[in-house]
């Protein structure tokens, strides 16, 4: 008798959880509606954009943070985005609404180049 109750309880719980999952339509652990890796980070340090090439989904926001002891900028070569001058610890964010490849560079130290691939 007890064993039957146990199995009945488990079965009910499973069904209940299944219903919950179906209703919410997403894995239980995610807090937001957005797909994973929607926000990406690029660190600027030692005159380098790291990672130099970053791939993000459409709608993602990329945030550049200057960790160097010298100011830098992040400016698209095609006029798509342009940061102000970033001193140490300052940030710049841009949301990429369209798919494509976006090369950029630091206008102060033009040897520093990077690329954002949006797909």
């Amino acid at each position, binding site marked *: 008798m007890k064993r039957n109750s146990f199995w009945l309880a488990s079965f009910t719980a499973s069904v209940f959880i299944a219903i919950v999952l179906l209703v919410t339509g997403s894995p239980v652990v995610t807090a937001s509606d957005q797909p994973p890796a929607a926000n990406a980070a690029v660190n600027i340090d*030692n*005159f380098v954009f790291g990672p130099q090439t970053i791939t993000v989904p459409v709608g993602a926001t990329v945030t550049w943070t200057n960790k160097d002891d010298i100011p830098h900028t992040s400016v698209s070569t095609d006029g798509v985005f342009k940061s102000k001058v970033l001193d140490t610890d300052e940030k710049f964010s841009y949301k990429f609404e369209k798919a494509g490849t976006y090369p950029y560079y630091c206008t102060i130290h033009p040897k520093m180049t990077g690329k954002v691939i949006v797909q």
Partner: protein
Amino acid sequence: MTDKNKDLIDQKLQDLNNDGVDRRGFLKCMAWAGTGLVWTMSGGIPVSRAFAKGHGKDAVKGGDFSFVQISDSHIGFNKPANPDVTATLQTAINKINAMPHKPEFIIHTGDLSQLSKPSEFDTLDQVLKGASAKQVYYVPGEHDMLSDNGEQFLQRYGKGTKGSGWYSFDQKGVHFVGLVNVANLKAGGMGSLGHEQLEWLEDDLKGRSASTPIVLFAHIPLWTIYPDWGWGTDDSEQALSYVKRFGSVTVLNGHIHQIMQKVEGKVSFHTAMSTAFPQPAPGTAPSAGPMKVPADQLQKVLGITDVNYLVSGRSLAVVDSPLGESDASSAGSGGGAGGR
């Protein structure tokens, strides 16, 4: 007089040859020594001699004059190795004011400010007001172009200049040209002069006698020192082709915060120390950023450059001296022992 100089030059060259060190190697060694050595360009051949105490007297001869190059003051920078760049700029100005021969003017080869902020330019102006030489010539560095493409720099220091701030002037028969190679920089590139400026330069030099000593000054080096770190100017070859015919050409640059010299035919290239912070030698660090040194070493890696024009030899003598060494005028004779 000229023949006497030539003999002296030959003598020096032979001495160098006997040492087993070639001219290029000798230049490299002496540049890194950073003490008060006089470099004389005479007919395209560099001669070095200790900075004799009597040098101040030579400069007084009619037509001779001197000026000082300072560079990379980076007013607004406040991190290691120098939390107070205004103080070290002041030290540089004090050093200029204490020189035995008064310089006619000062040339600042750029990066006046760290972030192109008005307050930074104001502070720089304040310090320079105390210089014995009242005339200061400027060219911008990339750090001076950060607000609206250098508009503020032009307003403050660009009167009478063309384009992004280039110009020329004459002083006692020497022709000076200030060039701007930090505007409109292209992704992946180094310094750039641009078509318009090159055309202006060609025109500016046209018709000048080949015996006119020429001084070109710009922020980023006009020769390729280290492309990986952007230490060079993409289109400088064309500019240098315009000065090839002149008997004496001196190129003064900044940007790399250390002394580097090169001689190519009758053109001598020289980069100055910064008055703010040193940078590493090419390839010796992950990046070209500020080099950290112990506080008691800082004054030795910052400095000014004294340039003396001697009419007799139609030559320009370039003397670098660190902020922390004893007076330039006594550096040669005594070997420049550190403390006072």
